[in-house]
């Protein structure tokens, strides 16, 4: 009797989601795999030709695809590191004895509430106009010039903006992790004479491992898939130096009308992101300790 009603409750909450997930994710995903084997421009009335694996073979010799994969990797590694380090630092700061901690939390979280597109346009103004005029007035033209016109600096600019956006959100996750640490454990460590760093590395970090798992997963997958900031800040320029995979795929499908080929790229992209994030999750999960 009891079991049955449990199951019914379970179904009540899960079924609608399963339905939505199946129709908007699972089914399109398999249709998408099918499209990756054909050559087609995306318009239903136009001709589709079955080309087998040639879309997949072609993309390994596509130098723009490979180079955008390189940028994405570079961007992701740098952004994930910086976002997590900053997010964690902010979290430690605002859970400490800081007097303005509530205001600080709000301020740090604020950028996340601004959409990526708008954020990109704001920063575009900063990196071009503001930087230029700072450079002109201070004479430090080596650092303050229009960053978005330089291939290396524009990638760095993208990392800064992504960090600016994500760090506050990641901070919130770390805060919940840190607040869940029982006071007595930390106190016991302090009584035993552990200093700040020892408490941090030996006590706090192992106990917030679940937060690490979530934060790394979120930042990894978000950074790989970044598109909005990319399109509004640099549009991939200058000379493709900041063209990320998502943008490469979008252009392939919607600008060049290579629907099937772009779809093949998207499938490969999905596989890569899935493998990398799964490896990350399985590694960090192992490090989690049970209290």
């Amino acid at each position: 009797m009891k079991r049955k009603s449990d199951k019914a409750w379970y179904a009540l909450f899960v079924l609608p989601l399963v339905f939505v997930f199946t129709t908007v994710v699972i089914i399109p995903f398999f249709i998408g795999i099918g499209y990756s084997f054909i050559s087609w421009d995306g318009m239903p009335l136009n001709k589709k030709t079955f080309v087998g694996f040639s879309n997949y073979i072609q993309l390994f010799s596509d130098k723009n695809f490979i180079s955008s994969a390189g940028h994405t990797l570079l961007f992701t590694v740098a952004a994930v590191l910086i976002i997590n380090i900053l997010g964690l630092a902010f979290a430690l700061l605002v859970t400490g004895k800081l007097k303005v901690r509530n205001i600080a939390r709000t301020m740090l979280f604020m950028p996340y509430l601004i959409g990526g597109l708008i954020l990109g346009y704001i920063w575009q103004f900063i990196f071009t106009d503001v930087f230029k005029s700072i450079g002109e007035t201070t004479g430090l033209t080596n650092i303050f010039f229009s960053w978005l016109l330089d291939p290396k600096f524009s990638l760095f600019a993208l990392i800064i903006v992504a960090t600016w956006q994500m760090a506050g959100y990641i901070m919130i996750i770390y805060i919940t992790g840190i607040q869940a640490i029982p006071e007595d454990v930390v106190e016991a460590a302090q009584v035993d004479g552990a200093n700040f760093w020892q408490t941090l590395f030996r006590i706090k970090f192992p106990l917030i491992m679940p937060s690490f798992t979530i934060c790394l997963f979120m930042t990894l997958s978000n950074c790989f898939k970044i598109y909005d900031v990319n399109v509004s800040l640099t549009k991939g320029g200058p000379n493709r130096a900041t063209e990320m995979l998502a943008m490469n795929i979008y252009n392939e499908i919607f600008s060049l009308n290579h629907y099937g080929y772009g779809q093949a790229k998207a499938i490969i992209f999905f596989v890569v992101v899935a493998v990398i994030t799964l490896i990350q999750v399985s590694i960090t999960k192992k490090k989690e300790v049970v209290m």
Partner: protein
Amino acid sequence: MKMKKIFRILLVMTLIGIMTLTGCGGAKDNKSANSDGKTAEKEEDKTNSEEKGTTESAKKIVVFQSKVEITDQLKALAQEYKAETGVEVEVWNTTGDDYLQQLKIKLGNNQGPTVFSLAPGSESNELSAYLADLSDLSFVGDIAENMADVKEGKVTGIPYTVEGFGVVYNKGLIDASKVTDFASFETMLKEQKDAGINGFSLSSESYFLIGHILNTPFALQGDPGAYVEQLIKGEVTLEKTPEFVEFAKFMEAIRENTNNPLEVKYDKETGDFAMGKSASIHQGNWCYGMFADYDVNFEMGMMPLPILGNDKIAVSVPTCWYVNSQATDAEIQAGKDFIEWLYTSETGKKYLMEEFGFIPVVANMKNEKLDPLSQAVAEYTNGGKTIPWPMNSYWPAGIVDVYLVPVAQEFFTTNMTGTELLQALNEAFVEAGK
């Protein structure tokens, strides 16, 4: 126990509710997609099916078009159309940038608008299966020669207007009669630079950066279409074509003597020109509207970009109206009626000429109030001094944004030579044309 029972009943009822709701939704969607769908909104579906059999024309149509500048005026026009004919016209907004993508997605999902716009050429060829035959509109015979978009003998696209681009210049700062070839163009740039004025300006948006200016050497070829084909096949190269060699010299001179166009946006480009900070900009008559916010106290004109002494400006139909062939018959009829009304009724004509500021493309239409730049375009057109727009007709789809812009960005941020620029552009065409 009683509570539990009540709970269970509630639960079952909710589940059934959800099932029926979702079930209904699905069925409805399927039906509309299979039978008479192709409409944007469910309400519209209803009106259509009600209308069917009674009248021939739908009571509501949807217009989606790419020219952002006329959106507000078009909405006002829709009000007047409703007042005169009782047919509702819904105008969808666009930002302009992603219009084509949005349109393709909507057409592909059978949720397309009834009337939409495209650039005749590569764009309309790609979507030719979606274009209804408009040959039977009454004024089709009056459209100026080669201006309508004709596919397999059928007129499918009705031109908006003609537009022309070239060097828009400040008559107080530049004497157009003295800028006739590369040498004099370069001298002009240097003189302006010495006077503390930016002699010539491009801007960072794709067509304003490279698309329009690169159009000129292509248009100067004897047969631009054949030239693009040969270029893609590798039978000709840009660096061995004199017009392009000269074009590269222009680009070098521009990089040398003017602001970096990558730091200039359309707003700034036109704003600087209006305030007299730039002596000339590479733009078309469409940019006149941008000067409305400034007190422009000088006369302006449009002159050709003098590549190898070129004395013509690039004039063509930028956009045509099309009717969605996948809409219901009633909607197609309503769409055609709308276009017919737009080009033949007094109100429609008044809007085309006065509100939209279009240059007439249909005989017996006259625009008395053309702005100076449109006036210049009209004069060049009447004098036969025009070159076409191969960028719309023959260039591979999507090439400007995806392939040409990165090359131009590289050119304007490095010391790449003109020859290297041509090689890179050449490679871009081969790549994009594959």
